[in-house]
């Protein structure tokens, strides 16, 4: 049993471990702090103590527009969850989940034991994969025009071709999503990220996450490859990342079942 945090520290919860899974060798957590576990009535919370003065609400507010600070904190959080997911299942907690003392944390774990167990049951033996689709080309050929009337006719024709091409791409995106959804255990559609955030000029048309059995990952990877090839002919580029802890399938315990 861990003692209360030393003066001037708060407890951060990274997530919870499957009680049956082995406890991994932990990497350094947020702000290079050590990681340990707190067990309360069958729930195993992954915890770390953070310096209170560096992580109090005023500091979060002060760093709200500081991508370097928040990026480092997020990567510390993610690194710990990746270590956990490498050896067993993990239910991520939203960053930050901070508690003033151990009793507060234990109270929350007791109060939410059922929801945490339900989330764990939902994702047990499964892992998250992400797939995005971008529109990289629009098949609109420029036509030479000799007169003004020719030019206007060509413009109108091009507009029609563009609309048709976009509708066709939209249909292809839906088919691709359906194919991957059927090859997975659950799927979530997220809002496509703005091109200002993706550092890509091409618009994102699909931003999806899929929950896949650990044993089916190779097959799902092949499916992703096939879809990528299929959509390429329609001017779409596929980007995949994973495996991720099942962040998208545990989002707020209560709403999770609706999203999955």
């Amino acid at each position, binding site marked *: 049993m861990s003692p209360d945090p030393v003066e001037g520290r708060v407890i951060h919860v990274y997530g919870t471990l499957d009680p049956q899974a082995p406890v991994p060798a932990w990497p350094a957590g947020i702000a290079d702090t050590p990681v340990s576990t707190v067990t309360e009535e069958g729930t195993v919370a992954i915890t770390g103590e953070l310096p209170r003065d560096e992580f109090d609400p005023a500091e979060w507010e002060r760093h709200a527009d500081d991508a370097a600070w928040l990026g480092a904190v997020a990567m510390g959080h993610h690194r710990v969850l990746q270590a956990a997911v490498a050896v067993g299942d993990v239910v991520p907690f939203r960053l930050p989940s*901070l508690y003033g003392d151990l009793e507060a944390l234990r109270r929350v774990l007791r109060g939410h034991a059922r929801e945490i167990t339900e989330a764990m049951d939902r994702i047990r033996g499964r892992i998250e994969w992400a797939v995005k689709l971008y529109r990289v080309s629009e098949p609109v050929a420029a036509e030479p025009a000799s007169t003004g009337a020719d030019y206007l006719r060509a413009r109108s024709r091009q507009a029609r071709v563009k609309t048709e091409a976009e509708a066709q791409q939209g249909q292809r995106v839906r088919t691709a999503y359906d194919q991957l959804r059927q090859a997975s255990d659950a799927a979530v559609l997220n809002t496509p990220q703005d091109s200002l*955030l993706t550092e890509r000029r091409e618009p994102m048309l699909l931003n999806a996450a899929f929950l896949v059995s650990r044993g089916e990952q190779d097959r799902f990877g092949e499916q992703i490859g096939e879809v990528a090839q299929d959509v390429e002919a329609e001017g779409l580029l596929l980007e995949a*990342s994973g495996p991720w802890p099942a962040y998208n399938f545990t989002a707020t*315990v209560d709403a999770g079942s609706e999203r999955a």
Partner: protein
Amino acid sequence: MSLTPATTDDVALVDLLDRVIGGGVVVAGDIVLSIADVDLVYLGIRLVLAPAHEVEQSVGLRVRES
């Protein structure tokens, strides 16, 4: 297609933040930082990841009021 292993530090910051702040279990209670505070941080960082002036034009929001 491109495939990024999520086990490396190569994951895009926006993907990471969408997951670690936008996803995961939220348990209210004796938390030091309120859920509303976190929502503000999340909104702020999403906006600041893009150049501020372009964000203003595209979504009509300022990054910070102060």
